[in-house]
């Protein structure tokens, strides 16, 4: 073992690391012989889809995985700051964690202790690792918060985590990560839970601070655009292996491995709107080159008519927020504030906005889950509230999280045909036949109708949710972030499916999303929502390339984009 010295050599050197999780009756291989290194002051990205082993790699750097459940074959080297992590004991590791190596997690709300003020949490680290007294710790903490471009560090310092916004909490997490002058920071999806505009700020902060303090960063993410924005080098992982590595620009501009190429091709960014996206599975199965996979024909989509299907006029939705002693509402929060929007037959209108802007409230109102507080919504010329049940069912919704939108105890045939059983009982044989047809429509195996949701992958579950919505032959489909819980390659499949279904059945979509590149790909028109109001509406291309409203411009500037990164360099 080398003597601990941090002057020379890489900060991290992993060689030939394999790792398996040992379960009760099975062994799951998570890593298969990976090697990587991070030099001092370097920002390195580790990219891959869920289950590719990127988080396992990071957790193993600090040995945060339960030792009894993990099997590491002989011959592996994991050196962090020239110390062999695999041979270190818990005490030594504890000193290293939070001191020379620190971590930033995805969800700052759960990573911070909710019952302690920021003050206590920051001081605790400084006192433990740097042995500072109270006053020194306070001075240092305040200056760290100031470095995070927090305008009022004193308020943040004395606040509880729940009093801070998501972006502010993540800044506190980063300040804490930098507080002990670490040599290495492991950031596990640090911006995935944040809004786009906040994400851009946080990424820039992370990059600036790392460069200023010469700290190495291992950034784990599924988002190639994030990598392109701040990383010097990148490793691409697929099924527990590193399939490609190199300078960010080289890897993204000229990918060598099939998987990397497929991953880039699956991104809607830079592709012709409404064209077919290539899927990773197709590329990997064909084994050869990514180009060999399906070409990208532009669909012969029907032009949207100018007959309005849905008219939203001055709609307002508010929730009771404060109550008097008898439980009567005395205060209201307005989620949707005098919104007007018209959706024509056969059109795809996207509603873009950050979390909390009221886009989901609007969707819930359209399907009747939340009552309208003011204004009017007309569907095919009739007032929404006065619709009969059959017409009302022409508006269906697909939710964000396919995990929670399917009853875990129901087999597929029951899930997709549930809407058909309302008002009549067609019998099991008829339902199974209908379910098989729906499976055919959404590209699921017709023979799988007896399976339960947990036997399907995330993308397949989202197909089931789409099939359920289609079962009653809807005309208007509300898609509430239908791809944001999915991997990029699966997102491409679902987008392809939605576009195919639209071309085939003349469906009208209201697509709710915060992902601008997906919106650009799928929509005819875009409405931008900000703090309950629609601030800009127009043709997709126009709104997204030449925004007129200030907020839209901020949003477009913040969106991490591969093209933008390459244009700037």
């Amino acid at each position, binding site marked *: 073992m080398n003597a601990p010295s941090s002057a020379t050599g890489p900060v991290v050197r992993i060689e030939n690391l394999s790792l398996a999780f040992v379960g009760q009756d099975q062994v799951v291989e998570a890593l298969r012989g990976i090697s990587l290194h991070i030099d001092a002051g370097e920002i390195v990205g580790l990219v891959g889809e869920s289950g590719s082993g990127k988080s396992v790699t990071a957790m193993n750097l600090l040995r945060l995985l339960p030792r009894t459940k993990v099997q590491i074959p002989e011959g592996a080297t994991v050196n962090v700051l020239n110390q062999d992590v695999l041979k270190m004991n818990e005490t030594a590791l504890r000193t290293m964690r939070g001191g020379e190596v620190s971590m930033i997690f995805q969800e700052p709300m759960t990573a911070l202790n909710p019952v302690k003020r920021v003050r206590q949490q920051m001081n605790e680290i400084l006192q433990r690792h740097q042995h500072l007294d109270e006053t020194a710790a306070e001075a240092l903490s305040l200056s760290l918060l100031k470095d995070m471009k927090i305008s009022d560090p004193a308020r943040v310092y004395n606040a509880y985590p729940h009093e801070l916004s998501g972006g502010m909490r993540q800044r506190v997490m980063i300040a804490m990560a930098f507080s002990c002058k670490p040599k290495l920071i492991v950031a596990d999806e640090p911006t995935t839970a944040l809004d786009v505009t906040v994400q851009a700020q946080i990424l820039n902060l992370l990059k600036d601070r790392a460069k200023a303090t010469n700290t190495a960063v291992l950034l784990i993410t599924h988002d190639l655009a994030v990598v392109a924005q701040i990383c010097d080098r990148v490793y691409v992982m697929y099924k527990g292996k590193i399939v490609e590595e190199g300078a960010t620009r080289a890897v993204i501009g000229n990918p060598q491995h099939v998987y990397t190429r497929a991953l880039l091709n699956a991104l809607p960014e830079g592709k012709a709107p409404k064209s077919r996206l290539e*899927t990773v*599975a*197709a590329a990997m199965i064909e084994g050869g080159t990514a180009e060999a996979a399906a070409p990208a024909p532009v669909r012969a989509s029907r032009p949207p008519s100018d007959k309005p299907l849905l008219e939203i006029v001055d709609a307002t939705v508010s929730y009771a927020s404060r109550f008097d002693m008898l*439980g009567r509402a005395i205060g209201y929060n307005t989620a949707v504030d005098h919104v007007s929007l018209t959706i024509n037959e056969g059109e795809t209108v996207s509603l873009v906005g950050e979390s909390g802007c009221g886009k989901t409230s609007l969707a819930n109102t359209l*399907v*009747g*889950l939340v009552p309208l507080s003011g204004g009017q919504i007309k569907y095919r010329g009739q007032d929404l509230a006065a619709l009969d*049940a059959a017409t*009302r*069912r022409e*508006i*269906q*919704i697909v*939710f964000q*999280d396919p*995990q*929670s*939108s*399917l*009853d*875990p*105890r129901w*087999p597929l045939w029951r899930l997709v045909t*549930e*809407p058909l*059983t*309302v*008002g009549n009982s067609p019998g099991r044989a008829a339902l199974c036949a209908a379910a098989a047809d729906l499976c055919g429509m959404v*590209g*699921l*195996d017709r023979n*799988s109708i*007896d*399976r*339960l*949701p*947990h*036997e*399907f*992958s995330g*993308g*397949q579950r989202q*197909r089931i*949710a789409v099939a*359920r*919505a289609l079962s*009653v032959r809807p005309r208007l489909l509300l898609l509430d972030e239908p791809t944001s819980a999915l991997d990029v390659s*699966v997102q491409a*499949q679902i987008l*392809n499916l939605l576009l195919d279904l639209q071309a085939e059945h003349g469906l009208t979509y209201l697509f709710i999303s915060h992902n601008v590149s997906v919106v650009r790909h799928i929509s005819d028109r875009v409405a931008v929502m900000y703090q309950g109001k629609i601030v800009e509406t127009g043709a997709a291309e126009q709104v997204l390339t030449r925004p007129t409203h200030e907020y839209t411009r901020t949003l477009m500037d913040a969106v991490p984009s591969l093209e933008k990164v390459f244009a700037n360099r």
Partner: protein
Amino acid sequence: MTDIAPPASANTATLDRYKRSRFKNISNFEVIVAGILVTIIAVLAIFGSFLQTHDPMQGDLMARFTPVGEKGYTLGSDNLGRDLWSRMLVGLRWSMSCALTANLINLAIGSTLGLLAAERPGWPRTISRQITDTLQCFPFLVVAIVVVVIIGHGFWPLVLTLGFLAWPIYQRVVFAEASSIFQRDYVKAARIAGVGRFRIMIQHVLPGIRASLMVIFAFHFAGLLIAESALSFLGIGAPLGVPTWGNILAEGRQYMLRAPWMMLVPAGAIVISVVTMNLAGDGIAAMSRKRGRSIDV
């Protein structure tokens, strides 16, 4: 189909596999032990009258304080020379039917109020929670004593007292679990599709809370057994002349030093049945956790 295919093993005969897996999960130690003990208790309670060796009421003054196993008295005899084994069997049937009936009444009242509170925010929820809170404030045994004293002794007064007083735990658990299920997207999707409230409860919510209900049923059964024995021990549970574990224990206490088995036998029986029920609860909980994991991952 373009999704990455699941492992080949998942493709074949999945329905059968799911059905089998329910039984495969019964590999749990607690479940096996509890299952055996519950079966024994149930057999003794149902067929107990055929297993009696003596008349449980008729004493033989020549055979007072016969120790365990002597002169044909399997579990010994008491101060009046009555066979303890036979009396225990009568008591077992009495206590078990009392706890079971009361438990079913608890289940019905508690789940109804819990579901009501979860499904209808507003005044139904307020009323349901207020009743539950109020009831939980009362010291249960004291109220039970008062009620039994006023209404009188007997099987039904005791069952109804337990049945109408001990349900708050069901309300609490059902309310909490059902509320979370009502928030799930699949319930929203069902509502959007036009599925009625009642059907949503029967098809989505009740199956979702079934496992928890089974666990509480087992634990609560144990609690009711103790409550029944305690009331009988105090002389206000079973009517005079009916031997139950509680009053056998109370009698035995007076002869603790002379004939310790008179106390140890009913006390041991109470401990064994309470532990059995708790084991069953743990086992069901472990099984549903295991199954839950395979569903949720």
